[in-house]
Protein backbone atom coordinates (compact mmCIF):
# COMPACT_ATOMS: atom_id res chain seq x y z
CA UNK A 1 0.00 0.00 0.00
CA UNK A 2 1.16 3.48 -0.80
CA UNK A 3 0.41 5.07 2.51
CA UNK A 4 0.02 4.15 6.08
CA UNK A 5 -3.51 4.42 7.22
CA UNK A 6 -4.36 7.55 9.11
CA UNK A 7 -6.93 7.37 11.85
CA UNK A 8 -8.56 10.61 12.89
CA UNK A 9 -9.09 11.10 16.61
CA UNK A 10 -12.55 11.70 18.03
CA UNK A 11 -11.37 14.99 19.39
CA UNK A 12 -10.35 16.30 16.02
CA UNK A 13 -13.61 15.21 14.43
CA UNK A 14 -15.58 16.92 17.17
CA UNK A 15 -13.55 20.07 16.68
CA UNK A 16 -14.44 20.03 12.99
CA UNK A 17 -18.08 19.54 13.87
CA UNK A 18 -18.00 22.53 16.22
CA UNK A 19 -16.39 24.58 13.50
CA UNK A 20 -19.14 23.56 11.10
CA UNK A 21 -21.84 24.59 13.55
CA UNK A 22 -20.15 27.91 14.13
CA UNK A 23 -19.95 28.51 10.41
CA UNK A 24 -23.61 27.62 10.03
CA UNK A 25 -24.49 30.20 12.66
CA UNK A 26 -22.23 32.67 10.92
CA UNK A 27 -23.86 32.22 7.56
CA UNK A 28 -27.32 32.66 9.03
CA UNK A 29 -26.18 35.83 10.70
CA UNK A 30 -24.46 37.24 7.66
CA UNK A 31 -27.48 36.71 5.48
CA UNK A 32 -29.74 38.60 7.88
CA UNK A 33 -28.11 41.82 6.71
CA UNK A 34 -29.09 43.46 3.48
CA UNK A 35 -25.90 43.01 1.53
CA UNK A 36 -27.37 42.71 -1.95
CA UNK A 37 -25.44 40.39 -4.23
CA UNK A 38 -22.72 40.16 -1.64
CA UNK A 39 -25.08 38.14 0.45
CA UNK A 40 -25.05 35.42 -2.18
CA UNK A 41 -21.30 35.42 -2.46
CA UNK A 42 -20.77 35.51 1.29
CA UNK A 43 -23.12 32.60 1.82
CA UNK A 44 -21.49 30.64 -0.98
CA UNK A 45 -18.03 31.38 0.39
CA UNK A 46 -18.99 30.09 3.81
CA UNK A 47 -20.64 27.04 2.26
CA UNK A 48 -17.42 26.38 0.37
CA UNK A 49 -15.38 26.57 3.55
CA UNK A 50 -17.79 24.21 5.24
CA UNK A 51 -17.68 21.72 2.42
CA UNK A 52 -13.92 22.07 2.41
CA UNK A 53 -13.87 21.02 6.06
CA UNK A 54 -16.18 18.09 5.45
CA UNK A 55 -14.13 16.90 2.49
CA UNK A 56 -10.78 17.39 4.19
CA UNK A 57 -11.55 15.76 7.52
CA UNK A 58 -14.80 13.81 7.52
CA UNK A 59 -13.99 12.45 4.10
CA UNK A 60 -10.27 12.07 4.82
CA UNK A 61 -9.23 13.96 1.74
CA UNK A 62 -6.40 15.61 3.64
CA UNK A 63 -4.80 12.22 4.22
CA UNK A 64 -5.36 10.71 0.80
CA UNK A 65 -2.71 10.72 -1.92
CA UNK A 66 -2.51 13.62 -4.30
CA UNK A 67 -4.31 11.75 -7.07
CA UNK A 68 -7.58 12.13 -5.18
CA UNK A 69 -7.19 15.86 -4.89
CA UNK A 70 -6.35 16.18 -8.55
CA UNK A 71 -9.41 14.30 -9.69
CA UNK A 72 -11.62 16.17 -7.25
CA UNK A 73 -10.34 19.36 -8.79
CA UNK A 74 -11.05 18.01 -12.28
CA UNK A 75 -14.62 17.21 -11.32
CA UNK A 76 -15.28 20.58 -9.73
CA UNK A 77 -13.61 22.37 -12.60
CA UNK A 78 -15.84 20.52 -15.05
CA UNK A 79 -18.95 21.54 -13.16
CA UNK A 80 -17.75 25.11 -13.04
CA UNK A 81 -17.16 24.93 -16.79
CA UNK A 82 -20.69 23.73 -17.42
CA UNK A 83 -22.17 26.54 -15.35
CA UNK A 84 -19.82 29.12 -16.83
CA UNK A 85 -20.51 28.05 -20.40
CA UNK A 86 -24.24 28.32 -19.85
CA UNK A 87 -23.83 31.82 -18.54
CA UNK A 88 -22.17 33.00 -21.72
CA UNK A 89 -25.60 32.58 -23.17
CA UNK A 90 -27.87 33.44 -20.27
CA UNK A 91 -26.23 36.69 -19.23
CA UNK A 92 -25.85 38.18 -22.69
CA UNK A 93 -29.06 37.20 -24.38
Amino acid sequence: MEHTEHILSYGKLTAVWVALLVLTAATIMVTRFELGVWKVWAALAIASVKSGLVIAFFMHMKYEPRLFRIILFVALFTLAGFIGGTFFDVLYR
Partner: protein
Amino acid sequence: MSHAEKDSFGAKLGMWLFLFTEMLLFGGVFILYSVYLTRYPKEFGLGGHQLDLVFGATNTVVLLTSSLFAAMSVTAIKRGAKQLTLGLLSGTIGCALIFLFIKYLEWSAKFHHGIYPNSPKLIAGPPGESIFFSLYYLTTGLHGIHVIIGGILMTWTAVMVQKGMLNSADNVTLENVTLYWHLVDLVWIFIFPLYYLIL
Protein backbone atom coordinates in the same frame (compact mmCIF):
# COMPACT_ATOMS: atom_id res chain seq x y z
CA MET B 1 -1.47 -6.24 -8.27
CA SER B 2 -2.63 -9.69 -7.55
CA HIS B 3 -6.22 -10.68 -7.91
CA ALA B 4 -7.02 -12.09 -4.53
CA GLU B 5 -5.92 -9.37 -2.21
CA LYS B 6 -8.39 -6.63 -1.62
CA ASP B 7 -7.47 -3.23 -2.96
CA SER B 8 -9.01 -0.78 -0.53
CA PHE B 9 -7.27 2.11 -2.25
CA GLY B 10 -8.89 1.11 -5.53
CA ALA B 11 -12.25 0.75 -3.84
CA LYS B 12 -11.99 4.25 -2.44
CA LEU B 13 -10.94 5.60 -5.82
CA GLY B 14 -13.98 4.00 -7.38
CA MET B 15 -16.19 5.46 -4.67
CA TRP B 16 -14.84 8.92 -5.20
CA LEU B 17 -15.47 8.65 -8.92
CA PHE B 18 -19.01 7.68 -8.11
CA LEU B 19 -19.32 10.65 -5.78
CA PHE B 20 -18.26 12.90 -8.64
CA THR B 21 -21.15 11.65 -10.72
CA GLU B 22 -23.45 12.47 -7.82
CA MET B 23 -21.98 15.93 -7.54
CA LEU B 24 -22.61 16.52 -11.21
CA LEU B 25 -26.10 15.15 -10.93
CA PHE B 26 -26.89 17.79 -8.35
CA GLY B 27 -24.73 20.14 -10.37
CA GLY B 28 -27.32 19.95 -13.12
CA VAL B 29 -29.96 21.23 -10.73
CA PHE B 30 -27.63 23.98 -9.54
CA ILE B 31 -27.10 25.09 -13.14
CA LEU B 32 -30.84 25.58 -13.45
CA TYR B 33 -31.00 27.27 -10.07
CA SER B 34 -28.30 29.78 -10.91
CA VAL B 35 -29.80 30.58 -14.29
CA TYR B 36 -33.29 31.10 -12.96
CA LEU B 37 -32.03 33.04 -9.97
CA THR B 38 -30.41 35.57 -12.28
CA ARG B 39 -33.60 35.76 -14.30
CA TYR B 40 -36.12 36.03 -11.47
CA PRO B 41 -34.31 37.48 -8.45
CA LYS B 42 -37.47 39.13 -7.10
CA GLU B 43 -39.72 36.11 -7.34
CA PHE B 44 -37.02 33.91 -5.87
CA GLY B 45 -36.76 36.34 -2.99
CA LEU B 46 -40.47 36.17 -2.33
CA GLY B 47 -40.44 32.41 -2.57
CA GLY B 48 -37.41 32.04 -0.33
CA HIS B 49 -39.06 34.05 2.41
CA GLN B 50 -41.89 31.55 2.50
CA LEU B 51 -39.50 28.74 3.42
CA ASP B 52 -39.14 28.06 7.09
CA LEU B 53 -35.66 28.97 8.33
CA VAL B 54 -36.14 27.06 11.58
CA PHE B 55 -36.82 23.80 9.77
CA GLY B 56 -33.87 24.41 7.48
CA ALA B 57 -31.43 25.32 10.23
CA THR B 58 -32.48 22.40 12.41
CA ASN B 59 -31.99 20.02 9.56
CA THR B 60 -28.57 21.46 8.90
CA VAL B 61 -27.53 20.78 12.47
CA VAL B 62 -29.05 17.30 12.34
CA LEU B 63 -27.19 16.42 9.17
CA LEU B 64 -23.88 17.83 10.40
CA THR B 65 -24.22 15.79 13.53
CA SER B 66 -25.03 12.66 11.58
CA SER B 67 -21.93 13.28 9.53
CA LEU B 68 -19.90 13.58 12.71
CA PHE B 69 -21.23 10.21 13.89
CA ALA B 70 -20.47 8.66 10.54
CA ALA B 71 -16.92 9.98 10.55
CA MET B 72 -16.42 8.79 14.14
CA SER B 73 -17.68 5.34 13.25
CA VAL B 74 -14.77 4.96 10.85
CA THR B 75 -12.35 5.84 13.63
CA ALA B 76 -14.14 3.45 15.95
CA ILE B 77 -14.02 0.47 13.64
CA LYS B 78 -10.37 1.04 12.86
CA ARG B 79 -9.65 1.01 16.56
CA GLY B 80 -11.59 -2.21 16.82
CA ALA B 81 -14.40 -0.82 18.96
CA LYS B 82 -17.28 -2.79 17.55
CA GLN B 83 -20.01 -1.72 19.97
CA LEU B 84 -19.06 1.91 19.63
CA THR B 85 -19.14 1.60 15.85
CA LEU B 86 -22.61 0.16 16.00
CA GLY B 87 -23.72 2.89 18.36
CA LEU B 88 -22.37 5.60 16.14
CA LEU B 89 -23.96 4.08 13.08
CA SER B 90 -27.30 3.98 14.86
CA GLY B 91 -26.74 7.62 15.70
CA THR B 92 -26.28 8.40 12.03
CA ILE B 93 -29.36 6.46 11.04
CA GLY B 94 -31.33 8.12 13.79
CA CYS B 95 -30.31 11.53 12.53
CA ALA B 96 -31.32 10.50 9.03
CA LEU B 97 -34.76 9.61 10.31
CA ILE B 98 -35.10 12.88 12.19
CA PHE B 99 -34.05 14.71 9.07
CA LEU B 100 -36.66 12.95 7.00
CA PHE B 101 -39.32 13.59 9.60
CA ILE B 102 -38.59 17.29 9.67
CA LYS B 103 -38.60 17.32 5.89
CA TYR B 104 -41.98 15.68 6.00
CA LEU B 105 -43.31 18.34 8.37
CA GLU B 106 -41.93 21.05 6.17
CA TRP B 107 -43.36 19.67 2.96
CA SER B 108 -46.78 18.99 4.40
CA ALA B 109 -46.94 22.53 5.75
CA LYS B 110 -46.23 23.78 2.24
CA PHE B 111 -48.78 21.44 0.71
CA HIS B 112 -51.24 22.80 3.20
CA HIS B 113 -50.73 26.27 1.89
CA GLY B 114 -51.43 25.04 -1.60
CA ILE B 115 -47.81 25.16 -2.64
CA TYR B 116 -46.88 22.04 -4.51
CA PRO B 117 -45.85 21.36 -8.10
CA ASN B 118 -48.57 22.25 -10.55
CA SER B 119 -50.86 23.56 -7.81
CA PRO B 120 -53.51 26.09 -8.85
CA LYS B 121 -51.96 28.66 -6.54
CA LEU B 122 -48.57 28.41 -8.21
CA ILE B 123 -50.04 28.40 -11.70
CA ALA B 124 -51.90 31.60 -10.89
CA GLY B 125 -48.86 33.27 -9.33
CA PRO B 126 -45.99 35.00 -11.12
CA PRO B 127 -43.87 32.75 -13.40
CA GLY B 128 -40.70 32.91 -11.34
CA GLU B 129 -42.45 31.76 -8.19
CA SER B 130 -43.61 28.52 -9.73
CA ILE B 131 -40.07 27.97 -10.98
CA PHE B 132 -38.68 28.58 -7.52
CA PHE B 133 -40.92 26.08 -5.82
CA SER B 134 -40.49 23.52 -8.56
CA LEU B 135 -36.74 23.78 -8.08
CA TYR B 136 -37.17 23.61 -4.33
CA TYR B 137 -39.18 20.42 -4.53
CA LEU B 138 -36.88 18.95 -7.12
CA THR B 139 -33.70 19.64 -5.17
CA THR B 140 -34.92 18.68 -1.74
CA GLY B 141 -36.79 15.70 -3.15
CA LEU B 142 -33.70 14.42 -4.93
CA HIS B 143 -31.69 15.07 -1.79
CA GLY B 144 -34.30 13.29 0.29
CA ILE B 145 -34.05 10.23 -1.94
CA HIS B 146 -30.32 10.26 -1.34
CA VAL B 147 -30.88 10.44 2.40
CA ILE B 148 -33.11 7.41 2.18
CA ILE B 149 -30.59 5.47 0.09
CA GLY B 150 -27.82 6.51 2.47
CA GLY B 151 -29.87 5.37 5.45
CA ILE B 152 -30.47 1.98 3.86
CA LEU B 153 -26.77 1.61 3.09
CA MET B 154 -25.92 2.56 6.68
CA THR B 155 -28.27 -0.07 8.02
CA TRP B 156 -26.76 -2.67 5.72
CA THR B 157 -23.23 -1.85 6.86
CA ALA B 158 -24.34 -1.91 10.47
CA VAL B 159 -25.53 -5.46 9.92
CA MET B 160 -22.18 -6.35 8.36
CA VAL B 161 -20.36 -4.84 11.31
CA GLN B 162 -22.58 -6.77 13.68
CA LYS B 163 -21.78 -9.99 11.87
CA GLY B 164 -18.10 -9.17 11.99
CA MET B 165 -17.76 -9.05 8.23
CA LEU B 166 -16.47 -5.55 8.63
CA ASN B 167 -13.79 -5.21 11.28
CA SER B 168 -10.67 -3.31 12.15
CA ALA B 169 -8.73 -4.96 9.31
CA ASP B 170 -11.29 -4.89 6.54
CA ASN B 171 -13.55 -1.88 6.68
CA VAL B 172 -13.39 -0.16 3.33
CA THR B 173 -17.10 -0.76 2.75
CA LEU B 174 -17.90 1.19 5.87
CA GLU B 175 -15.55 3.93 4.76
CA ASN B 176 -17.22 4.09 1.38
CA VAL B 177 -20.70 4.23 2.79
CA THR B 178 -19.71 7.05 5.10
CA LEU B 179 -18.18 8.83 2.13
CA TYR B 180 -21.55 8.59 0.46
CA TRP B 181 -23.20 9.92 3.57
CA HIS B 182 -20.84 12.89 3.71
CA LEU B 183 -21.74 13.68 0.12
CA VAL B 184 -25.39 13.88 1.12
CA ASP B 185 -24.29 16.30 3.80
CA LEU B 186 -22.18 18.29 1.34
CA VAL B 187 -25.11 18.79 -0.97
CA TRP B 188 -27.21 20.03 1.90
CA ILE B 189 -24.50 22.48 2.90
CA PHE B 190 -25.22 24.20 -0.42
CA ILE B 191 -28.96 23.70 -0.50
CA PHE B 192 -29.39 25.37 2.84
CA PRO B 193 -28.00 28.82 2.03
CA LEU B 194 -29.26 28.76 -1.55
CA TYR B 195 -32.87 28.15 -0.66
CA TYR B 196 -33.31 29.29 2.92
CA LEU B 197 -30.84 32.09 3.44
CA ILE B 198 -29.76 34.26 0.57
CA LEU B 199 -33.12 35.08 -0.87
